[in-house]
């Protein structure tokens, strides 16, 4: 008996795109994750405004306070999103179906990361203008460099977040384990993110923090490769 002709699976990029599109379509129809993230980040921002009111912000300067506030908000809400990205698979046990897809496991990682990146970026698009309103800094004049800095660091955050969310989902734990894993490992990312954001808010050119940006770019690439190589071990049963 000859084996049935195998249909080749999609390539890496196409496969990743299919996985990401699936997640984003679910998200678009329910808005379950994004609404939770938006509400949560709003609460975090409001709590920060209790801690640092506008007088304090004006005294200390937005460049000293806002970077920390922004990245705490992004990473906390990111945790909510990353944890959900594997929780939706657990719900109907569709992770097994996903694993059976005729693609390499690393494709699943790339797809999930892409979807998480898009979700967190959508959240950031909402938070950045809001923080400019709350903390009174001029977003429009800094828009280009700020977006570049935020996106570069969000890529690394999404990669590690996706990887660790898979680990946490495998052992049946949620946000608590994810945060315990993510925050220490991502600490270089946070230091760099705060440094670069502060430089941008100070009105310095991006070349002033080029070594941080380069380090982050290297971090993004390194952990993408590490995750691609190790993701199959996480999904294995």
């Amino acid at each position, binding site marked *: 008996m000859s084996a049935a002709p195998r249909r080749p699976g999609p390539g890496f990029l196409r496969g990743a795109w299919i996985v990401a599109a699936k997640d984003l379509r679910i998200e678009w129809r329910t808005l379950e994750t994004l609404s939770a993230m938006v509400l949560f980040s709003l609460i975090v921002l409001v709590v920060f405004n209790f801690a640092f009111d506008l007088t304090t912000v004006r005294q200390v300067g937005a460049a000293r306070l806002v970077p920390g506030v922004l990245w705490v908000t992004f990473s906390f809400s990111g945790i909510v999103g990353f944890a959900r990205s594997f929780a939706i698979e657990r719900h109907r046990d569709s992770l097994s179906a996903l694993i059976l897809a005729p693609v390499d496991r690393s494709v699943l990682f790339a797809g999930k990361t892409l979807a998480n990146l898009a979700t967190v970026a959508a959240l950031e698009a909402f938070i950045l203008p809001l923080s400019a309103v709350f903390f009174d800094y001029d977003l429009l004049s800094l828009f280009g460099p700020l977006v570049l800095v935020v996106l570069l660091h969000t890529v690394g955050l999404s990669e590690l977040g996706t990887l660790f969310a898979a680990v946490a989902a495998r052992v049946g734990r949620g946000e608590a384990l994810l945060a315990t894993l993510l925050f220490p*490992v991502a600490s270089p990312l946070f230091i760099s993110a705060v440094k670069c954001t502060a430089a941008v808010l100070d009105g310095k050119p991006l070349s002033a923090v080029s*070594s941080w940006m380069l*380090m982050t770019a290297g*971090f993004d690439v*390194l952990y993408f490769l590490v995750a691609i190589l*190790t993701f199959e*071990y996480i999904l294995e049963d």
Partner: protein
Amino acid sequence: MKGGKEILTVVLLAVTAVLMLGAIYMVFVYAPEERVMGPVQRIFYFHVPSAIVTFSSVMVLLVASVGYLSTRRAFWDNLSRAATEIGLLFCTVVLVTGPIWAKSAWGVWWTWEARLTTTLVLWLILAACLMVRGYAENRDQGARLAAVLGVVAALDVPIVYKSVDWWRGQHPVVFGPGKKEPLAPEMLRTFLFCLLVFFLLYALLLVLRTRVATLEDRARSLSETLGGR
């Protein structure tokens, strides 16, 4: 073969115990008192070797994790578990002895300086690795997830160090360029001796912990054979 291993372990235990007593003698009697810092400087002979052992343990963790992922032999997993636990132990020693010294030398218990921050972050990462092992549904899963985390963690350590170093730095540099006065020869000898003893202690603990993990495996598989009690 089996007996040979036992004898080697006992010899290692005896040698480490004797040399540890020697190290304590050297630290408190042989080494001269430091002019500026006084007796508190002697903590350096325990602090720095512990730190070097901690970071070596991360290297062992990396090798064991890669070894497990590529061969799937239980030995590598037991080694990586031992390296994580004992690394965490020495890391704790570093984090306890450091502030005791810092309070008297710098006037503060803690500062967010490159090596301190890196060590604290490493402590958190190692603890997280152990947490995942504890949560795992079965042994294989725990081993696989811990191996992946081991690779991620070990690669992270130099990056954390570099980033915090750029962020701020004020740790005393005892060795290397930029140091005008060299260490007194007695101090250097004491330090090198302590380093040797700490590595022996590390090796001993690593051997024993790996052995215990192997025995745990055997006990588990025996109880499964006998009907899972």
